[in-house]
């Protein structure tokens, strides 16, 4: 019975999607600093995603400047005009399937909008918000 339970648990872990696993890693990181941390919050994430800041380029932008408000629709890069495919997995199943890509864009885009790399808490919150908008 115990073995069955353990193997089921293992199976469950391996079935968790890439982004869910990453959210777990981020959660553990936050818990190291804050033992009573409950979980990520999409409200805080929304504030991170929609609020404007003087970005790396010296212009006031938010994540929505390039990704738009409706995450199920494509939008244009604020600076280059190139189309950015939707963040929503519903309309763009490719999204959030590669850990390397998720990490890369969180790192880059926090730098672009906030002029610093986001904390584990901020990354978790904003990811939770994006995933909740599908």
């Amino acid at each position, binding site marked *: 019975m115990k073995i069955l339970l353990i193997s089921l648990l293992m199976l469950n872990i391996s079935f968790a999607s890439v982004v869910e696993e990453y959210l777990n890693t981020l959660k553990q990181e936050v818990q190291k600093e804050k033992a009573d941390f409950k979980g990520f919050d999409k409200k805080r994430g929304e504030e991170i995603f929609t609020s404007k800041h003087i970005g790396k380029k010296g212009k006031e932008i938010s994540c929505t400047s390039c990704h738009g408000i409706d995450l199920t629709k494509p939008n244009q890069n604020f*600076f280059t*005009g*190139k189309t950015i495919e939707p963040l929503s997995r519903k309309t763009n199943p490719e999204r959030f399937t590669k850990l390397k890509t998720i990490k*890369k864009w969180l790192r880059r885009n926090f730098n672009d909008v906030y002029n610093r790399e986001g904390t584990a808490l901020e990354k978790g919150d904003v990811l939770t918000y994006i995933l909740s908008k599908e």
Partner: protein
Amino acid sequence: MKTLTILFILFTTIFADDYKYHTKKVEITNQLYLEECASCHMAYQSQFLPKRSWNKMMDNLATHFGVDATFTKEDEKTIREYLLNNASDSTNGYGYYSKFARSISSMDTPIAISEIPKFKREHREIPKRFISQKGVKTISNCIACHKDAKKGLYKERNIFIPNYGRWDD
């Protein structure tokens, strides 16, 4: 009629060859380069700039035209190798690519193709409103007017400016 047909065939083969010649030489097949460098802008043909330009660009990815374009170490190495192997001074030079590259002074290390003297000359007659308009936005958005830019073709017959039409010098 017969001569006309022969002429027609001759012309179409010449142009087809020209087409193939350019696209084959500058065609970007490196998947990593396409994935990594064409997510924010068009994948520019590396043959436009010399090795020193690509090195300078790859050394400053944290502030790549004001944005963070950093890679993992391995990806950075692979992409740098690709750019250096296909830079203007790594190839024999052909067509307008070599003309663009030759217009760069040996004292300069431009990191934007739009800084190349020949590029500036070629675009100086374009009214600013055509560039600032929605759908073009910036002079670096080649594909907005050069419809075959992705294939590496920048000839006049492939130019179509939004809200204006064909461009003739």
